[in-house]
């Protein structure tokens, strides 16, 4: 029986009450930017929440998260699109990242978008891809500081659209 409506708590039913108790987004405030041209002419980028960072870059701050379990690093890391499967760490502490470490396309589809680029399905994959570490209980610094920094870089690279891959 094909699924008609996704149950977001299917794999984590014990989180249902906790999540539903949080303030919901107001659909009337959802932002909107129309796609101005065909995807085949667009430069796109990818954003993951898997805590991905280059092996020669600075890790997300897990020392502080271990000291303060209710805190999560709200910063981001940039990953060149040329980075390979094993050039990065997949570091999110709240999900099993071993599958990503084995095959990044389970949630970080760089190879698929490089194929889209070769096929002309997208205009180009941007040189820079992005990751945050998705456990950010206080998302204010993410909204106020991190997102604008990512957007600034995306605009500088001429990005038309970003695909978000939460884990």
């Amino acid at each position, binding site marked *: 029986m094909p699924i008609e409506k*996704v*149950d977001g708590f299917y794999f984590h039913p014990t989180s249902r009450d906790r999540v539903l108790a949080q303030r919901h987004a107001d659909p009337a405030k*959802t932002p909107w930017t129309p796609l101005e041209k065909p995807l085949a002419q667009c430069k796109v980028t990818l954003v993951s929440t*898997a805590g991905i960072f280059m092996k020669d870059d600075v890790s997300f701050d897990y020392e502080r998260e271990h000291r303060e379990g209710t805190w999560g690093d709200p910063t981001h890391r940039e990953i060149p699109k040329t980075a390979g499967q094993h050039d990065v760490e997949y570091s999110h502490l709240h999900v099993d990242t071993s599958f990503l470490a084995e095959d990044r396309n*389970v949630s970080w589809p760089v190879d698929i978008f490089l194929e*889209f680029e070769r096929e002309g399905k997208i205009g180009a994959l941007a040189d820079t891809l992005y990751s945050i570490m998705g*456990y950010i*209980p206080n998302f204010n610094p993410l909204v*106020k500081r991190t997102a604008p920094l990512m957007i600034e870089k995306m605009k500088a690279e001429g990005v038309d659209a970003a695909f978000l891959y939460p*884990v």
Partner: protein
Amino acid sequence: MPRAVFVQYPFGRQLGIVGDYVGQRRICEDMTALLEEAKAPNAYRHLPYEWPEPPETTKWRPDVPPPIFTVRQAKEGGHNLLDDFKDEERAAYTDAER
């Protein structure tokens, strides 16, 4: 989120199982299609694909529980994460700024 596709797959493997490139690509194609087809905000699409394992036996949790797990265990009953925020910036965050 202005546009989103939802899929009933486990945390950490939202595009499919390891090695299933065809299935992974199919969901990326669903995403690119929605980007081109959506004409207004709150454009959401639920994908019909079913995960091949029952949720009880699907591995998605890390072998070592995250720090918040210990925090929750230390407190009696449930608690609101928002109560634990120490970041003073949160106090200045209002609906008007969203």
